[in-house]
């Protein structure tokens, strides 16, 4: 708890990684920057923490990036079976770290987790940005709302996910065994959490109108995993939410068009 008592202004700007135990689950938590608290929930591939746009935000925010159970170096006990479980852990994490007026930003899976948090308790949140979040099924039983990441061939998934699949290319040969193991573990944990119902919680659609915190949705115009219409439907369920579309970007618009993303973020952070 010593860390929680430190005021943001005394924290070093250099990144640090520590472990925080919530409900018996040891969670990896990265922290960097100084300023108002920004809880950043990574996408399922955990591509965000080392990305340049995060460093840019670290000049203005104290950024806290937890790894979900089973991702990064966080534990995953068997009782953690869904995104709902993760949302409770993160609400407790906010309390344990003593954070208030939190800017909550979530990407893809992280966006879904953020939405699940906000419907439960948004008392410590100041604003929320959801970037291409999963979590809701809008269509009928025969509609596939969300492209099936596991049934489709990896090349097809990459083509749907990225405006330019080159942007998603990872040089596997250059990665260490540890890094590869972490990638495999992240993929496994993603499936554990989201396999069925496929990438959504049937309850969430009926709970989103509880969200009172100012919310902005951000979408890539070329997102083939969750088409922009999915974002439009999502927006309708969150009272007062706005939707920003980023051109020439796929499912991870903040990585493909970081400058456009940062411009939207700036407006979001100052406006709400």
């Amino acid at each position, binding site marked *: 708890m010593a860390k929680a008592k430190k005021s943001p202004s005394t924290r070093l700007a250099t990144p640090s990684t520590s472990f925080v135990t919530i409900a018996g689950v040891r969670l990896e938590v990265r922290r960097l920057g100084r300023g108002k608290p920004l809880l950043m929930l990574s996408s399922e591939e955990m591509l965000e923490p080392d990305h340049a746009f995060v460093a840019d935000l670290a000049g203005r925010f104290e950024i806290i990036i937890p790894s979900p159970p089973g991702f990064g170096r966080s534990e995953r006990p*068997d009782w953690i079976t869904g995104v709902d479980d993760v949302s409770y852990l993160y609400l407790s994490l906010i309390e344990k770290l003593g954070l208030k007026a939190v800017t909550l930003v979530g990407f893809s899976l992280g966006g879904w987790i953020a939405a699940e948090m906000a419907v439960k308790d948004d008392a410590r949140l100041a604003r929320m940005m959801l970037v291409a979040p999963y979590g809701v099924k809008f269509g009928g039983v025969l509609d596939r709302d969300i492209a099936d990441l*596991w*049934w489709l*061939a*990896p090349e097809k998934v990459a083509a749907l996910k990225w405006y330019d699949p080159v942007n998603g290319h990872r040089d*596997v*040969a250059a990665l260490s*065994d540890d890094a*590869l*193991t972490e*990638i*495999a*573990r992240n*993929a*496994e*944990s*993603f*499936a*554990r959490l989201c*396999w*069925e119902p496929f990438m959504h919680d049937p309850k969430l659609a009926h709970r989103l109108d509880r969200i009172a915190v100012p919310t902005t949705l951000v979408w890539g115009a070329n997102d083939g995993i969750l088409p922009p219409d999915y974002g439009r439907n999502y927006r309708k369920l969150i009272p007062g939410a706005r939707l920003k579309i980023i051109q020439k970007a796929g499912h991870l618009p903040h990585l493909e068009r970081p400058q456009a993303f940062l411009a939207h973020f700036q407006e979001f952070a100052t406006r709400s």
Partner: protein
Amino acid sequence: MECWHFSEFPYPHFPADEPQSRINLPSKHFDPAIGADLYNRYLDEHCLADELGLNIMLNEHHQTPTCLNAAAPLSAAILARQTRNARICILGNPIAHRNDPIRIAEEMAMVDCISRGRLECGFVRGVPYEIFASNCNPAETVDRLWEGVDLVIRAWTTVDGPFNYEGRFWQRRSINVWPRPLQKPYPRIWITSSSDTEGVTRMAERGYVFAIFLQPWTTVKAMFDVYRSHFVERGLPGGGGMAYMPLVFTGDSEEDAEKGAAELRWYLTGARSPAHYRSPPGYLPLGAMTRMMRSAALPVGAQLRGRGLDALREEGILFYGTPDTMVKQIRAYYDKVGGFDHLLMMQQAGFMSHERTARSMTLFAKEVYPRIRDLAPTRATERAKVAAE
């Protein structure tokens, strides 16, 4: 050595140029009239196995023309009535993929009663692409298998009225299975694995039979060694044993046998699925997954596809020859892998006709089986070894 006849009930009459045969091949390619003939024919061949003194093995797969036996308990029930002496091994019930282990307990108990105690009850985790048919979470298949097996056994052996069960994957408020199996305390349990050494250790601990299919002999030996070393240390409660399944063709001449082997090889080339169906997230342990990402190595089955008949024989994937050479091959293989108990023989695959299949089965049963029966069950040998030490 116990020998078992096996066929996957293939339906080979689908377009050869289809890139995928498993999971995604449209069912319009299934002609029910042909299917009706095939079902009856394959069941007849299992009846023939019984007449010839062979045992019977059955399995199931889903959404695939490579295996029409989509519900093995049904064919087991038919054969329970239509055969007289054969042991009937289901290998196995894909319990991780079925929503109700209690239903499996009922089905198996019925088959055991109807067959008057001839059931050998196998369970499998399911091959990776099965998850696309069942929707089972790939990361949970191992844990579901073991919880399911434990629940089935508890259901069979709890005889004093309903019990409550609230487990990780299944919950029931009142389990009281009728009927009970005929065999005491219950039919022998079999489980398959090709790489999970921890699972093999558990099988040995519990005295379950460990079975491995169509793997290079070095892999088979390594896995058998894990099982053996464990029961040498701890003893082997309840029997247990080890089983291996190759493709098997016994011919009238070497030339005839080679022709039959080529027909059986259909099994290695006809079952096609996209690479990513074979490694869904969480199905393989992290180490294996990491190695696969690193090397982009093809799984064993895919590697074997391109191999010639000689190489497949060398690896122990395919046993073929005249009765004399078959006896030599099997005895040499037995020694190479350190001994085992059950030879599970896929004696029919692809387009192989009934006549060819029946001839091979008959030659094996009459001229090979009597000359390999004496191969000792390994557990007895190992027990003797332990006793001597």
